[in-house]
């Protein structure tokens, strides 16, 4: 079993604090909704308790993280999966950026063109050949056109060039 790296613990605590803040927000909003309507729970009842529960869970995660750091061993049961290799942040950011750009483009250049661009860009980012990327970028949107537009009759957004 590997010792928790200092970075992991920091991220763990940050996430827990974020959850705690979110729990406070949920409770604050829930209190503006009606908690009880007469003797029956109102719309604020469930969110209030969900917020409280989330807050307790966040505090438990924080407490666990401190215990873990003190005892030098991770909380809970042993891991069952092999740890992931370290992130390649640039690749992941590139994939995220391409995908977001494509969704922005859907209503401007049309669904099929946007997807063709995604396929081309992601194929290249993941180290595929130009040939494979171009073939997928042409072939798959064509298949999608047959499946979604013709067979399932989904009105796909079109670009200025009619598809």
């Amino acid at each position, binding site marked *: 079993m590997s010792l928790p790296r200092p970075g992991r613990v920091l991220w763990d605590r940050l*996430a827990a604090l974020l*959850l705690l803040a979110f729990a406070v927000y*949920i409770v604050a*909003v829930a209190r503006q*909704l*009606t908690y009880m*309507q*007469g*003797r*029956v*729970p109102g*719309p604020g*009842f*469930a*969110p209030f308790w969900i*917020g409280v*529960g*989330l807050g307790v*869970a966040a505090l*438990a*995660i924080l407490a*666990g993280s401190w215990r873990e750091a003190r*005892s030098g061993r991770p*909380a*809970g049961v042993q*891991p*069952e*999966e092999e740890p*992931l*290799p370290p992130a*390649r942040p640039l*690749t*992941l950011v590139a*994939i*995220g950026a391409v*995908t977001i750009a*494509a*969704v922005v483009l*859907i*209503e401007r250049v049309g*669904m099929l063109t946007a*997807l063709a661009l*995604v*396929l081309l860009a*992601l*194929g290249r980012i*993941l*180290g*595929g050949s130009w040939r*494979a*990327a171009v073939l*997928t970028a042409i072939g*798959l*949107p064509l298949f*999608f056109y047959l499946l*979604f537009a013709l*067979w*399932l009759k*989904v009105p796909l*957004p079109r670009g200025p060039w009619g598809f």
Partner: protein
Amino acid sequence: METLRLLGEGFAVVVQPLNLAAAVAGVLVGQLVGVLPGIGPASTIAILLPVTLSLNATAAMIMFIGIYYGAMYGGTITSVLFRIPGESASVMTTIDGYAMARRGRAGPALGIAAFGSFIAGTLGVIALMLLAPSLARVALAFGPPEYATLLLLSLSLIVYLTGRNPAKGAAAALLGLWLSVVGVDLITAKPRFTFGQLNLLSGVEFVPVAVGLFGLAEVLLSVQRGAAGAGVTADLRLRAVLPTVADWLASRWAILRGTLIGFFVGMLPGAGATAASMISYATEKRFSRHPERFGTGAIEGVAAPESANNAAAVGAMVPLLTLGIPGSATTAVMLGGLLIFGLRPGPLLFQEHAPFVWGIIASMYVSNVLLVLLNVFAIPAFVAVLRLPRAVLLPSIAALAIIGVYSLENSVFEVWMALLFGGLGYLMHRLEYPPAPLVLALVLGNTFEETVRQSLQISHGSLAIFATRPLAAAFLVLTVVLIALPVVAQRRQVRRLRAVRKAT
């Protein structure tokens, strides 16, 4: 007798061309995603949900079950040949399966896994057929308090059994519950947490969340995991795949015990196929007269977990169909799909939609037969799929996810939601928050809130209603025990650690 008549009617449903085609398509797709590491049945069903909405509910569900089953069979191939579980439920098979492959016995390992899965799957369906209708009859007597406490128990089980840190599981489940209250409150028509978005008035749609958390997040994680290695080359022709008499004798009890363990563990919410395969592997090792052989290529070490994961996939259908409570991510996505079709699984399903239920049950027999054939005759074809470059496969999955989610409501908003949850799913995985409790809580949240409010309406606001009805009280006590367990265990661990420190 009645059961046989209903089953006969079920088979009449399955042999309709559309349903049969759905079964074949399902097992083929399932086998494929089973073979491909990283992409599991939950994400596949989520991504395909929008496409299947054009079918009818029966055909869609038959296809989903085929996918679920197929993934259980297909996961074996990668485990044995590459020592990479194609699907999390095949983790245990990597131990003895890969050891067998390195000794040149990949064929029999895959063969016994296929036959074991077939036997376990078929026995499991028989058990389901006998058990489910009576359970459904019992569940008919459930009122809102019983349902509310049962849902609480199920959610706690899921939190307790998925992931290492129950607090993180609980946080995920509570986030899911919060997502379920977003939108207009059904009783008072008051909007909650809609952030001024018209799109959120009708609530958070289930499909974009599932596609994001499982599909898109898995694409990102697959990028990070990197490609599979070269693997073991093996003779996979029919003669090599058929197990010998000695193999059969060595694994017969392992298959039967695996089936039994798998079916019952599979019924528990949160435990599922992966846990079932682990428990059955450990059991086999304990029962064995030569436990030292495990890990060096013992065929029982393949037969037991592979039988167990298939039986568990069937067992998981019991609470889904009879109580409307999914026990795993995959069955949660199935439930989400059924709800979109306007079918609410639960005790009434057996009465009001008998042809649907029995059609599904009959389709499980058919899928089992199709899969054992595929896994005896067509293994080389599926091994070839692994040569498909990731640079083609992963972008294609992302593209299908985008267009699929869009087609659901013809709205880009849902695509943004899927991207948002894709990112969240990736972060959750990195920080070890299990995504399954979130999805399950999202699917069950509305019913949970509804039944709690109905219960308190019945009791005029008194919480005593949950403690005075015997079944509800029993569910509640079990929940409290479950929540207390990890706390007690942790206390004990800390105490032991301190004792060790004092001693040294």
